[in-house]
């Protein structure tokens, strides 16, 4: 991760003076008596690369699921671009410009890379069945526009050589990249990434880091990233929230958070010596 880390200092810090894109307000989530999220609040501003980290079972994925509308908070409020997601179904949250990737790869195994990405354009298809049937007019124009967008992302993520190969034939790291691509072709404003580097080797992890920085800089997409690997996050994120047993124990820039005694305790155990 040398190069991106070196360049990190040169990057502009995202502007945090405006209105936040995501507002997570005093959210509590309980499942039959178990508290997954305990009174957590944070705000994510447009253009930020925001990370949520914590040990296994800290409530990271639950936080994600609250944002994407899969779970309803027991108490508190989640707002995206000023809209309360409480009353929305997950597919309606998507219409707000939210895309996500999953911890485990969720691609259509027998579709090619290209086809998997075209699926991501689904929300941009507005044509009717008749037009589609004869493939004229708007249907045709849309198909061309959608393909063009997909090709842009194929180039962005260097997926050219895998374009016509079925997803299941491809290495795991490439499948994760395709999944990222499928989220990007939606042209989201907010991208939710659930452990994008899980199960990857060193080189693949560095690739992912580079792509995520490119997404931030070139595509101007706000990203929220869930990760348990501290290393990945420290070089990437603008700000970090640390969860432990559903509680927020720290928030701030990666450097400060890394030195926070609470955080060190959560990661290394009570007896770890704080240096």
């Amino acid at each position, binding site marked *: 991760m040398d190069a991106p880390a070196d360049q990190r200092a040169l990057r502009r810090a995202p502007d945090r003076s405006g209105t936040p894109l995501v507002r997570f307000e005093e959210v509590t989530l309980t499942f039959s008596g178990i508290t997954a999220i305990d009174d957590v609040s944070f705000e994510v501003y447009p253009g930020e690369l925001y990370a949520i980290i914590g040990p296994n079972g800290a409530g990271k994925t639950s936080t994600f699921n609250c944002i994407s509308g899969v779970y309803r908070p027991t108490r508190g409020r989640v707002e995206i671009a000023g809209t309360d997601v409480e009353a929305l179904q997950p597919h309606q949250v998507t219409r707000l410009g939210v895309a996500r990737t999953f911890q485990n790869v969720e691609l259509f195994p027998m579709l090619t890379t290209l086809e998997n990405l075209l699926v991501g354009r689904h929300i941009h298809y507005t044509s009717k069945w008749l037009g589609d049937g004869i493939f004229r007019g708007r249907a045709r124009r849309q198909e061309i526009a959608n393909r*063009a967008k997909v*090709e842009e992302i194929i180039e962005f993520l260097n997926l*050219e050589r895998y*374009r016509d190969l079925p997803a299941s034939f491809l290495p795991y790291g490439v499948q994760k990249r395709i999944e990222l691509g499928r989220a990007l072709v939606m042209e989201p404003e907010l991208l939710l990434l659930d452990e994008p580097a899980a199960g990857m080797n060193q080189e693949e992890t560095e690739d992912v880091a580079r792509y995520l*920085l490119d997404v931030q800089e070139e595509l101007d997409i706000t990203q929220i990233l869930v990760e348990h690997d501290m290393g990945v996050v420290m070089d990437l994120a603008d700000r970090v929230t640390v969860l432990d047993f559903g509680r927020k124990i720290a928030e701030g820039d990666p450097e400060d958070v890394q030195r926070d005694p609470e955080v060190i305790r959560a990661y290394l155990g009570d007896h770890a010596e704080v240096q």
Partner: protein
Amino acid sequence: MSATLTAGTEELLQRIHRQSLPGRLIHLAHDRGSAPALREKRLGVWQERSWAGYRDEVLATAIAMLDAGVDRGDHVAILSENREEWVFADLAAQSIGARSVGVYPTNPEPEVAYILSHSGSVLVVCEDQEQVDKVVAIRDQTPTVRRVVVVDPRGTRDYADERLVGWQSFVQAGRDQLEARAAEVLERIAALDPDEPAMIVYTSGTTGPPKGAMLSSRNVTASADAGVAAFGYSDREQCLSYLPLCHVAEKIFTLYLPLATGAVVHFGESIDTVADDLREVSPTVFVGVPRIWEKMHSSVLVKMGDSSRLKRALFRAGQAQGQRLSAKKQAGKRWNPLDHLVWKVFDLLVFRPLQERLGLRRCWFPVSGAAPVAPELLRWFHGIGVPIAEGYGQTECAGVSHANPPDAVKIGTVGPVIPGVECVLGAGDEVLVRGPQVFVGYLHNEEATRETVDADGWLHTGDVGAVDEDGYLSITGRIKDIIITAGGKNLSPEQIENQMKTSPYIKECVAIGDGRKFISALIQIDADNVGDWASRRGVAYTSFQDLTSKDEVVQLVDTEIRRCNEGLARVEQVRAFRLLPKELHQDDEELTATQKVRRTAFYERYAALIEEMY
């Protein structure tokens, strides 16, 4: 733009001579206008550029370079994979009277630093962030670099280095002034001295630091004209530019030859998609280095292993008949009607589908160059109707001095001299070459130039050769690499190594035997093919190193070596071997940018492994 060029510039056009590449481009653009010159695959679609469009981009780039202070005799470095911008930058620099310097995009920082500072480059064209990072990091060592033009500026937007500028905005400034200043650049092209250096080609340097060979406009145009005269290369040819453009071999096929006749050059999507691009373009001429042919060969063999029994039987029969018939043709014997029928049948059943899959169906002139290739590999390709012609030449003579004519190939030779070149064998049967192609000299290295070109103009190639009764040259090895065994036999390690590399499981082989009783070899297995073989047999492994330590794998390589040994004389046969525990890499200074083994470094590093065998 075309209009302005034809209006007041007819007289100027007359003065532009055809002894330079930019001059040839101007004339081709004038004669051919909107006919296609370049195609590049972008966003999954082949985009075409006309000759006039090609010229205009080169002129615009030249204007931008002039504005950036590039002048006659300056050096412009290019760090990129093959793409349109590569040739635009190259020809623009030449138009001004400056020299282009190609740098391998795979070169690590220290090597980039060496070339930029040695050449004193003032402007660097970088393909992307990866290349920019290197140039930014070596800023202190390269004070001459004033401008860094970035073709794909993704990820570099917030870099603090004020030398950086995006290709589009850089060239756009030139496009905006095209009407006003095209004549200025055309005047410069008309004034180009054909004997001045036009480009620097750094040789990969298996020993010592790379040397910058200066090629003049006359060198490269003479090389192209000889190729056109000898092989019937026409204006209808289609080719794919994919080998590194900093190497003279690809320069011949991307720049020299197309600019001699007006053929079309294609740029694929990326280095990873060559196989697909090749299938789509189906070029009429194609140059491959041995590694490319080896890869194609092993990909066919591996795919065949997966196919049905019927297909395998057909393939074997086709191979046998194909090799028999092509050998018969080469021996100068006529085919009888039955021979023709047999060829036709196998062409339909085996050769044609195979050629189509490889993208070589339309290719009448498949060439192998840049390094010696195993005769057995060539026989195999001839046996599937791909009559590869081996060529030969130094960077120092603009890339080619010898080549097999496509209709009279002799396998195992590199062919007769091309028109305009003289060749004799000097002391120790060293191949000496003379002609208009012989280079100007090494940049900033008079001494090396004197050692290479003697007072009579003979270029000393450093290769040992023999010439047969028809004037075909065969190369037996490098003078300095020759192995003299303890028994006093002179052997060429390359021949032994290439024979071993015909096995799909052997990717790299280094033969050892100087002053020893027998020949041994260090082998790097082909990770993909051996990995595939291992998983098929249920041999579990974790890493490359683990794979090389498996008894089954050692056994496999042993069998392969025994098989390959059959093609060698007794004294040349490999009697002992060890598997390398890692893949050789340029970053570890084990390979050159052209993927050749640096022998001295290699022998030192693996001395212990070598001693084990004796």
